[in-house]
């Protein structure tokens, strides 16, 4: 397995930095890709491979999204489901959702995703600065 998945941000897609060696994943920026399936496929694949081998290990996943369109919301839900599944299998998963304090819509959306996490630990926090 690769040590890292590093996808640079574009105007329509978020930066994805999966640091597998340090068990720290991060998605940040804006997400309204032309083709959501095509953009998220390698992200899902990399996370599946990593979580499959995590066992009872620890993992932190940060969402720092400024804006996501409705089809990206579905992709984020699938990421959350993968993290929850891994937590149910014994991994210690910490999910952080950072929101811009100027936009309560993203805070509310984070809260809605968080409601579905039972075993993975969810944190809803303001973006620093």
């Amino acid at each position, binding site marked *: 397995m690769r040590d890292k998945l590093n996808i640079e941000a574009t*105007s*329509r897609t978020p930066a994805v930095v999966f640091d597998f060696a340090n068990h720290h994943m991060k998605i940040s920026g804006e997400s*309204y890709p*032309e083709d959501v399936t095509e953009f998220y496929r390698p992200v899902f694949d990399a996370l599946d491979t990593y979580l499959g081998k995590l066992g009872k290990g620890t993992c932190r996943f940060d969402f720092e999204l*400024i*804006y996501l*369109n*409705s*089809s990206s*919301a*579905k992709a984020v*839900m699938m990421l959350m489901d993968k993290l929850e599944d891994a937590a149910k299998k014994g991994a210690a998963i910490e999910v952080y959702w950072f929101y*811009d304090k*100027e*936009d*309560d*819509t*993203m805070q*509310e959306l984070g809260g*809605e995703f968080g*409601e579905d996490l039972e075993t993975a630990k969810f944190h809803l926090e303001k973006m620093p600065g």
Partner: protein
Amino acid sequence: MLAGQLMDLRSALHAQGVIFAYSGYVTEPVLSGVGEALKQKLTIDDADTKTLRSVFAIFVEQMQNIIRYSAEKAHQALPPASDAGALTEIRYGILTIGREGDDYVVCAGNLVERTDVPRLRERLSKIRSMSKDELKALYKEQLRSDPEQGSKGAGLGLMEIARRATQPIDFDFADVDDEYSFFALKATI
């Protein structure tokens, strides 16, 4: 003559408070380009962050609705040597962004098949009548369910528009001929 005609069109838009107008075939790069200009204009207007994000979010969903669902489309068959199933397809619609008093309004219109009108009308009436809490509950339910037949997105776009809007969404249909109706959707922020 030429200047007069084009100025009349511009004046008609101005009179309705329209700042941006696009009528024609819509593609994802069109969305990107108009979207960038829209962000710049909202920044120049000194719109607050939440208004800027909401106007932009509604613009994206409205444009993607045209790209995915407009019944008015042009096809170009690829040469036989290329992927047999592939067609390049572009869809036609109109989108305007404007001001009404202190509010922003994003309107989109496109043709739909008349047979789809009752289903669409029912869905929009339901969304229009819902409170923010009811919309939130339906949004979550829809997020968890499989997309409806004929849907190319997550089926969440219309709800996203209603949630981001500060007033109930407005919609209307006008029959064009036996086969098609013109569908218009207006969101106020």
